[in-house]
């Protein structure tokens, strides 16, 4: 049927129908495009970080800055392929006989003089403004879903919602630089939407093939003048036995990982 042969009212009706279909078509296209892009962004970042498969030993320098004073400590994190983590200290001396085991939402502390592991809250403040979750690493790709994404001239803003109520921070907002596709800022929220911590990422570089950044953490609730800076010193792959990541084995961890 030729469009010219249709009378006015019929033409209008068909135009409306065509526009409606076109709009619906574009809407269907745009929604999965937006979701896929946000997911792709997180996957891309995760891939470049390169800690997804295998076990690793990470050495970090943790600095606490309070006004003009700076204190530092050196932390070694053993990351198993199952995401179980053991956090130990190489400095200061008084903490070298302590270690913290993180298995999902369970956290234990072992101290040599105590001779047995004790369960502690993951909220325990150990690293200045950085809690266990930040030191052990937050998995934004697998523990969160993208609730919303906005775009500015320079950044993607992703709003994430935790998939499990047991996750330490229920909501997170990420600012991702559009050109380099790297995270520049994250704000972590409680379940009620209250902002808890701000993380700033800068000085991106490659470390043994892993893309890492310096991370500055600030508490948004109290002690706002203090901040903690984490710097990765080394990342190396290492076979680690899963049996070593158990509270009963914390006293023998060094024996089991052969370090």
């Amino acid at each position, binding site marked *: 049927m030729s469009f010219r042969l249709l009378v006015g009212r019929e033409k209008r009706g068909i135009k409306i129908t065509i526009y409606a279909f076109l709009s619906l078509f574009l809407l269907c296209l745009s929604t999965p495009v937006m979701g896929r892009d946000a997911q792709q962004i997180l996957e891309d970042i995760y891939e470049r970080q390169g800690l997804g498969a295998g076990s690793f030993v990470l050495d970090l320098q*943790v600095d*606490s800055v309070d006004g003009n004073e700076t*204190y530092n*400590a050196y932390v070694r994190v053993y990351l198993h392929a199952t995401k179980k983590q053991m956090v130990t200290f190489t400095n*200061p*001396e*008084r*903490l070298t006989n302590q270690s913290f085991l993180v*298995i*999902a*939402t*369970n*956290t234990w502390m072992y101290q040599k003089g105590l*001779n*047995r592991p*004790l*369960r*502690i*809250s*993951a*909220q*325990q*403040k*150990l*690293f*200045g403004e950085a809690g266990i979750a930040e030191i052990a690493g937050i998995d934004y790709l697998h523990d969160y879903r993208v609730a919303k994404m906005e775009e500015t001239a320079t950044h993607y803003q992703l709003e994430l919602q935790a998939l499990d109520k*047991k996750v*330490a921070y229920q909501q997170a907002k990420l600012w991702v630089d559009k050109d380099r596709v790297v995270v520049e800022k994250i704000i972590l929220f409680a379940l009620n939407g209250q902002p808890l911590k701000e993380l700033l990422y800068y000085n991106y570089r490659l470390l043994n093939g892993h893309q890492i950044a310096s991370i500055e953490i600030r508490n948004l*609730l*109290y002690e706002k003048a203090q901040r903690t800076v984490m710097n990765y010193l080394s990342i190396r792959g290492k076979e680690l036995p*899963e*049996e070593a990541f*158990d*509270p*009963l*084995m914390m006293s*023998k961890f*060094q*024996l*089991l990982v*052969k370090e």
Partner: protein
Amino acid sequence: MRIFRSRVGLKIFQVALCLALTGGGLLAAGSRVIGKPNFSGRINTEFIYHQLSEGLPTLQQPLPETESTTDLQLSLSGYTGACQYELQVTGYFHELLFETNQATVSSFFGPVLWEFGKKDWAWGKGLAFIPNYPLTQEAVYWGFENRIILSPFSLVAGVVRKNSQAGAGWLRAGKMFETSDWETIVSYVWRDERCYWQGGTEFSWDFLNGLCLHGGVNIEFPERTGKYLLGGVYTGGIFTYIMEYYYAKNHYLFAGLSREPGLFSRWQWGIKELFSLGDGGMITILNLKYLKDRTVTPEIIITTYGGGKGSETQKNPVEWECVMRLEVKF
């Protein structure tokens, strides 16, 4: 377990220990990897002031008003092959006493870890009290323990003895859940010419809001006497709050408030109270520690003994005491 009461049994035990040592040595020689030993030490000096109860006759005073003590603790640990050795000794200068706190060898094969030697074998969830550990906490015993980890399950078997008069064997089976862990324990104890079985369970649970609970129950057979523990630790933004209730022939309540130093703080302080609910007795402990220097740590601990009239703590000849401690690590 009566074998440990006879000389033959003792000989068998000693031969078994020697075989374990020899086997461990062969394993170690087989892998031919020797790690650098780790040596450390600390010197602990204390100056103690006792405020003695008024009205106590001088000749009956069991303690001097002031005293000072110094002890030196040396630790040596390292790896040889697939084995780890740990040795810790303490010399008490004021008593001219020398003690071995730990002398153990441990190794593993797959998910199985074994440990043999002399040490404090205490395990459990409680802070002030452990209902299921069958022996005296902080006491050292010769023994052997096997741990098998097949995540999320675990199995531990151990046997320890101090002498023919005191010792225990235990079997512990546990499982880890998403935010909690549970363990069932069965043990056989011989102490002061008594032999008995006891069984129980322990748990710890994180509510993911700063509150962690822990507890346990133990029943002794055949008398069917029980020991119970229920405790909680709440970690706030600045302070940590602890409370434990436990029952072992008497009811006790333990409460604590502390500020933990974390990684960077210089000061650590705490207040602990132990109440005897049966007779109203109370012990209060205040401590303050300075942590800035890596090697030198001063600490002050003040303990007071009080409570209701007629309580056991009121009968204590010491009203309060102050301990000033200096620890130097090297």
